């Protein structure tokens, strides 16, 4: 593998030479130049991402056909000739190894003369040239020409011969085209010297030099080390940014490239490390990481030790060796401090902070050393440092972390929002696409917490539409999950599942991402199956989900809630209570979230209600409502109120229940949670019925007021039924249907009552069928 020069670069030089000859017409000059530039200028990874694949491929491997595509449609200023014709003439004018050497020797004449040369010319009495076009030495083209010449001078003879052979092979496809256009000129397909000796390609001598030119195999010259390095850098950048894996196609290409060259950049070991890491191949990722360190030791010595440790720590934690990870990270922190590498230090701190959030039990050591102080202090420290060193993405994520912390602790909503807005401002002004994902995610959560579901929905949609393709895979998955959760809340399971299945398995080649995806889609299905009362499926899914150890507190809590819900539905209240107690005990002050607290309290109250002792849940519901109210956790508040309403019902406080539930009904509907709405409606039915009942008992007769209550109850029952139907919640539907039948029976409408009873039986049958 050559260091820099490749046959395609020689072809580019030919094109530049044609351009400087001034035969490119004005109309096509821009086209030719932009083609050249797209081939020469290294694209910034961030800029290129939009059209990365197509542009990037062009970088290293410009096929001769690419030249034809670009050039053949453009006319030169010579009549009747396209630039492609001129280009062909140029590349075929290099008819021997010597011609190539001469070409490179003379290539500096394309450049503007240096000051020294100009002075020398003047001293020698030569007039400065005016006619021909010359490239400025520092222009992109000029720099490329100079670089190419320098690299050629560095080549040893056999290397330049290799380049020549590569070039012969490279241009060979155009031979027939060229020979057809210039039948008069005697042209050798390979080397003019062979022609002069009267030998053809099959002669012994030609075979000795060129081997078999036609066969494509062993085209080791097409890519230079520089190209490979750039390719690897790009790949590593992509992997780090997106967190995916190297696509199969690319991987085989890389293998092929690397197999052809003796000088492999050490970066390839890093790439392999990343790939193995994402693939979950623990031993080989370790192996490759250490191999990379060993190979780079020579050039970088200790200067990257902290980064090595950082990588190591991240790797360790990903594989569950948390203790090791923490100690490696601590070492990294101290090295970074020692060497005043603020970037690394900040990154380490930030990582430690997040790690501490996820695994507080492993942070004892760190806490003891007082490295980060408590959470708040840590955040303040990070914020200050990030501002100091102008690490905007760190600052943005820190602000988000702060907002998240405030939300979790149920503190001021305003300040949380303020932090989000500040982060958003940073993201926009500094163009931080990478931290937009977390920001939108947090926004989603925030809106969900204050019960504005449509805004929450909007945030996930914005992310999906605008940032999805460029965001790290993890963010994308999470956001999609939120999105689907919202859909599922409204009972649109099919849509949700379709959406989550849209994520192509190609992107899920990373082990972690795959696990997440499996968890998310499993979770959604489980929810659906629970509602459909399909116990077999639900049981099956549940065991599967529980076996996936997702290292994320929020997600495991979600699963716990769902499990409890399921257990409640199957009527095993004792077990439900036990599960609940267990999860309460597992809660730690570091990961404490008001949301889950409220949820747990409500669940407990509901279990009491279901198990026939609703009054025991009163204080629980009151506490939940209180907490939710204080921390503006509105969905929680509505939930608590519905539970409370249930308690009041059992105390025969129909009036109060009705009033309370009716007052929250608009907000509940706004929240777009069918389950909650259905329960609220069902409560209203009961309350109205209760009121009608008391009225009847007092008056002993069917008063119009009583009738009105009944009608209202009927209306509410219809609403509740609709909500349950949307959710496909068969149990709920049955319950409502039963209530309706009873209602009709009480109003003495036998026919309708019969009707509803038949419907109820149908539903039961359907449910049994599922079962």
């Amino acid at each position, binding site marked *: 593998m050559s260091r820099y020069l490749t046959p395609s670069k020689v072809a580019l030089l030919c094109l530049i030479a044609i351009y400087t000859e001034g035969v490119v017409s004005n109309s096509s000059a821009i086209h030719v130049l932009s083609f050249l530039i797209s081939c020469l200028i290294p694209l910034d990874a961030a800029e290129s991402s939009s059209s990365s694949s197509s542009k990037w491929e062009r970088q290293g491997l410009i096929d001769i056909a690419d030249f034809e595509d670009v050039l053949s449609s453009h006319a030169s200023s010579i009549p009747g000739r396209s630039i492609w014709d001129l280009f062909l003439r140029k590349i075929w004018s290099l008819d*021997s*190894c*010597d*011609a190539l*050497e001469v070409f490179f*020797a003379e290539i500096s004449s394309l450049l503007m003369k240096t000051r020294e040369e100009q002075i020398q010319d003047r001293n020698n009495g030569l007039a400065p040239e005016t006619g021909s076009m010359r490239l400025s030495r520092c222009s992109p083209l000029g720099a490329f020409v100079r670089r190419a010449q320098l690299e050629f001078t560095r080549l040893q*003879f*056999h290397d330049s*011969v290799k380049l*020549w052979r590569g070039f012969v092979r490279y241009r060979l496809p155009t031979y027939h085209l060229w020979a057809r256009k210039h039948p008069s000129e005697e042209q050798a397909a390979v*080397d*003019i*010297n062979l022609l*002069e*000796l009267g*030998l053809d390609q099959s*002669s*012994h*001598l030609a*075979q*000795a*030099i060129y081997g078999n030119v036609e066969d494509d195999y062993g085209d080791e010259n097409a890519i230079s080390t520089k190209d490979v390095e750039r390719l690897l850098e790009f790949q590593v950048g992509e992997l780090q940014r997106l967190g995916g894996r190297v696509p199969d196609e690319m991987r085989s290409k890389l293998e092929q490239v690397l197999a052809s060259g003796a000088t492999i950049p050490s970066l390839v070991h890093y790439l392999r490390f990343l790939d193995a890491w994402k693939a979950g191949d623990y031993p080989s990722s370790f192996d490759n990481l250490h191999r990379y360190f060993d190979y780079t030791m020579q050039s970088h010595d200790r200067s990257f030790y902290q980064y090595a440790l950082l990588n190591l720590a991240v790797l360790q934690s990903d594989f569950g060796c948390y203790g090791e990870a923490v100690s490696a990270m601590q070492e990294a922190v101290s090295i970074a401090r020692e060497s005043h590498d603020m970037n690394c230090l900040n990154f380490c701190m930030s990582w430690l902070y997040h790690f501490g959030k996820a695994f507080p039990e492993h942070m004892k050591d760190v806490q003891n050393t007082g490295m980060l102080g408590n959470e708040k202090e840590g955040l303040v420290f990070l914020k200050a440092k990030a501002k100091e060193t102008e690490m905007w993405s760190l600052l943005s994520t820190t602000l988000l972390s702060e907002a998240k912390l405030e939300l979790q602790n149920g503190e001021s909503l305003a300040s949380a929002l303020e932090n989000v807005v500040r982060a958003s401002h940073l993201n926009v002004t500094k163009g931080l696409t990478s931290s937009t994902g977390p920001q939108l995610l947090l926004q989603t959560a925030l809106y969900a917490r204050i019960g504005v579901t449509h805004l929450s929905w909007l945030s996930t949609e914005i992310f999906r539409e605008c940032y999805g393709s460029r965001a790290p895979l993890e963010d994308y998955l999470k956001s999609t999950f939120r999105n689907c959760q919202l859909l599922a809340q409204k009972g649109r399971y099919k849509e949700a599942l379709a959406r989550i299945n849209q994520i192509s398995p190609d992107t899920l080649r990373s082990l972690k991402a795959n696990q997440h995806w499996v968890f998310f889609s499993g979770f959604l299905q489980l929810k659906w199956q629970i509602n459909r009362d399909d116990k077999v499926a639900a049981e099956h899914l549940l065991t599967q989900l529980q076996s996936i150890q997702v290292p994320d507190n929020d997600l495991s809590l979600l699963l716990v809630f769902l499990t409890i819900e399921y257990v409640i539905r199957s009527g095993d209240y004792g077990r439900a209570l036990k599960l609940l107690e267990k999860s309460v005990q597992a809660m730690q002050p570091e990961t404490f979230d008001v949301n889950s607290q409220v949820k747990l309290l409500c669940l407990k109250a509901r279990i009491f209600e279901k198990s026939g002792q609703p009054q025991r849940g009163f204080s629980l519901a009151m506490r939940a409502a209180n907490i939710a109210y204080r921390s503006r956790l509105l969905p929680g508040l509505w939930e608590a109120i519905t539970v409370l309403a249930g308690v009041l019902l059992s105390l025969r406080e129909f009036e109060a229940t009705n009033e309370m539930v009716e007052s929250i009904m608009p907000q509940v509907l706004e929240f777009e949670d069918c389950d909650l709405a259905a329960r609220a409606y069902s409560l209203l039915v009961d309350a109205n019925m209760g009121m009608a009942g008391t009225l009847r008992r007092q008056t002993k007769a069917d008063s119009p007021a009583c009738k009105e209550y009944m009608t209202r109850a009927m209306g509410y029952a219809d609403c509740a039924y609709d909500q349950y139907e949307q959710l496909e919640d068969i149990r709920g539907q049955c319950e409502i249907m039963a209530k309706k039948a009873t209602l009709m029976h009480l109003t003495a409408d036998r026919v309708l009552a019969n009707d509803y009873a038949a419907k109820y039986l149908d539903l039961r049958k359907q449910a049994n069928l599922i079962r």
Partner: protein
Amino acid sequence: MAVNFTEENIRELRFRLEDAAIKSSERCLYQSAKWAAEMLDSLIPLNDYDTDPDSPMDITETPAGPQNPYLAVQDPLEASLESKEAYKYLLAKSYFDTREYDRCAAVFLPPTISPISLSTTSPNPKSRHSLTPQKGKTKAPQFTAGKDGSVTRNPYPKLSQKSLFLALYAKYLAGEKRKDEETEMVLGPADGGMTVNRELPDLARGLDGWFTERDEQGLADRGQGWLEYLYGVILLKGRNEAEAKKWLIRSVHLNPFHWGAWQELNDLLASTEDLKQIVDDLPQNIMTLIFHVHCSQELYQATEDTYQSLSELETIFPTSAFLKTQKALLYYHSKDFEEASHIFTDILISSPHRLDSLDHYSNILYVMGARPQLAFIAQVATATDKFRPETCCVVGNYYSLKSEHEKAVMYFRRALTLDRNFLSAWTLMGHEYIEMKNTHAAIESYRRAVDVNRKDYRAWYGLGQAYEVLDMSFYALFYYQRAAALRPYDPKMWQAVGSCYAKMGRIEQSIKALKRALVAGSYYAEDASQIGGAGRKILDPETLHQIATLYERLGDEEEAAAYMELTLQQETGHVAPEDDYTSSDNENDDEQSNAGTETKGRSRRGQQSFGTSNEEEEEPMYGTGVTATTSKARLWLARWALRHGDLERADQLAGELCQDGVEVEEAKALMRDVRARREGG
């Protein structure tokens, strides 16, 4: 040495060559084996049992052919010894093949054979080799020859000659290897050319003892020639040339088909006289003929005789690349580059992987200025093996032609690292250093070249040039004379000698040398006419003008004028020149004369002067036309005529000058002067 070979002779030759190839490779003399095998392959086919090679029947028929009578060991004593040592020999050979020389030697030789050397040190204290620069260490006097009278005993155990040769040769190579390792970098501090092979003294003493013992036993004529050859080589390395010659001649008598011995013998001969001296001592067979041709080629004797012998040989070995190379080199020496390059091209086409002598081909292409072809050859060589000294030389030459001298030097150095004794690389590196104005390095390179082969006139000439650059004319003169002695018919050499004398103020000698150059030049003109068709004897106007100016310096104006006239005459070459020739040739001639005025540039690589040398060889047939030199002569003559009152002639000459458009101002002034005198007188 008449050669009319019968079929019987050919068959015998075939057997002999086969025998030589097998035995040489048995003794690990790879190059000789290769040579013999190549020659064997190129031998004309025999009619009787040489059936169609493609026919499958051939395989079954081959064993039916007569057995090679030479393959069997003739001497019963040797045969029994060899069969006794067969296994040990195999062991030793395999060690040799894996380049474990010491181990190979140890198979047959006892670890210490020093006792004998201890006894001989004291009686023989004087060093006989003033030629070898010795290191300050005390060392046993080396290479005692038998006639010293000192008694040396055979230190070796009783072995067959084959095994003994292998063991001693391995020892010798081990020494060479160590020597190479000690020298380290090319032209580095340790590479002064004075590191020696430390095994040589022991080997020389031992072999001496061995041979004396054989003599005493009356077995002297039962040698096989191999050990004699080795002894010769060892003596040669110790610069004991007379003895070496003796032993080598003995070796070729005993074993005439061993090419290595001939080659060593060739290296010993410094001049044609030497060759003539030993010719009578040589055996009369075909190998002697080949040797003679090779020698003549190496000594630049591109004479009719040599060509004659060569073509005779070619009838026997029609496809021999070796002979073709010799022929090409002969053409090269007689400056027929086209023909030489043709032959080389043929060789290249028939065997593209052959790298031998490719460096010579690259020299030819260099002289012809054929850069694309040179690049092509370099490509071919690189494709075969990029780490062969020949390849490096070709590539170096290519870079040199491209004026990339640093790279060229790098490649020549590489060639030398691969083989210290690669002659042409030393010389070529010297040339490069001259180009890079590193005169001291150039001198050292040339010196090493000369040390390797004293017949390389280019190196001698280069040394002269280098010293001329340093203004050390005495040294330069010495080296130019050496070069001139090697190439007595090369005018360049004599011109260099002449100009050197002129610089030293020894004008008479200078004139003599320049006249010699004139004669030599005319000799070549004649010589060229034999090959190239009708030619004319023409004298180099340059030299003539130089002689004239020298006479002027001596104050001998008559002579000077005469030579100036001669110079003028060369314009026409005694024939009225056709106009188009004069006009078209003008450019080249100007270049030539420019080059000629600074002899340094001109004589690079002996003959080429920046690529115009071809024309130089061809043009004299038509006269030179008007050149700067002849114009100078004309101006001088005009002035001289004016001074001597020959106004007519002065006017005529000045008019001609005006016509030619050279030195017009001067000429016009002269004409005015003439007119003034005419009017005045």
